[in-house]
């Protein structure tokens, strides 16, 4: 009689332990589910941040940046410099790849708005809306930049810095 009673006690204890374990496992699973729910958003945000950093790095590189001519401002692209760079873009190639190792670079004027989406050339330099430095396909990352150039006021005979709002688009291939 006595051993049977203690066996029952052990069985009771075992069931109790299993129940407690299952309960804590469920609680743990729920906490893990909540913790991992924002993982996709975080990954997307990280991807966006990396793309933005790539674009900002490019905009602040010596070939694009305003430098001392425009009081060395951040996220500022020297439009005159870029225009000359476009004409000499073939010199920035090593084999099949370009110097920046991206598949495309475009600079677009946002404001003042130009209704005609015209590619810039030496004839429409001040009245155009787009410079395609490297045309190519890929994942696109873009960021706002200030497009600055030297302008001449023919009425007052003064030269001044004119900065407009634009966007730099960088296309790159996704890493495998």
């Amino acid at each position, binding site marked *: 009689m006595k051993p049977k009673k203690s066996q029952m006690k052990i069985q009771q204890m075992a069931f109790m332990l299993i129940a407690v374990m299952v309960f804590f496992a469920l609680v743990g699973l729920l906490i893990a589910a*909540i913790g991992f729910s924002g993982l996709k958003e975080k990954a997307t*945000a990280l991807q*966006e941040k990396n793309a933005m950093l790539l674009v900002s790095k490019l905009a602040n590189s010596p070939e694009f940046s305003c430098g001392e001519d425009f009081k060395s*401002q951040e996220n*500022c692209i020297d439009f005159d410099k870029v225009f000359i760079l476009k004409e000499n873009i073939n010199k920035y190639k090593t084999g099949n790849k370009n110097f920046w190792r991206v598949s495309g670079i475009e600079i677009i004027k946002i*404001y003042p708005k130009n209704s005609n989406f015209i590619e810039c050339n030496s004839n429409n330099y001040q009245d155009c809306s787009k410079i395609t430095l490297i045309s190519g396909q890929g994942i696109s990352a873009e960021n*706002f930049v200030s497009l600055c150039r030297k302008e001449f006021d023919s009425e007052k005979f003064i030269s001044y*810095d004119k*900065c407009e*709002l634009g966007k730099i688009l960088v296309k790159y291939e996704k890493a495998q």
Partner: protein
Amino acid sequence: MKNKKNKSGQEEMIGFALIIILVSVILLIFLAISLNRPKTEIESYEVNSFLQSTLQYTTSCQSSSGAEKYQAIQDIIFECELEDKCANGEDSCKVLNETLDGLLKESWQIGESRPNKGYELIINTDESQILNIKEGNITKSCKESFQTFSKSRTKKNFFINFKACS
């Protein structure tokens, strides 16, 4: 003897129930904290770059004092605060408002079918508000950037805050 056995079983049941209640309360608190965490106003590189570029934008307002150079948005904010006029007699605050309005409308096109649902731009000093432009719906999911700049002569601090909501 039977009573004692029953009492022991009851105590065990109460103990188990207490554990479940305690864990449930902890879980509820954890859930409440994680659900109420503010997910809005994420610092964004895009919004930050937009603000930086906007401050450098050259307006049509020429300085009425000294060299007649065209003013950038940052300079015109100082002029507006002093209620100065441009060289052509136009109100600097009006030029600032119109230019920023145009810049915002072209850069952050809003609408129900667009990714951007609304935006708000506030410029103020330590003492007063200079400008407030608000369009569309300011939802709970906003990207925000904040910048401070000061005028070297008066050493007055200016604050510009922009949020774009999706």
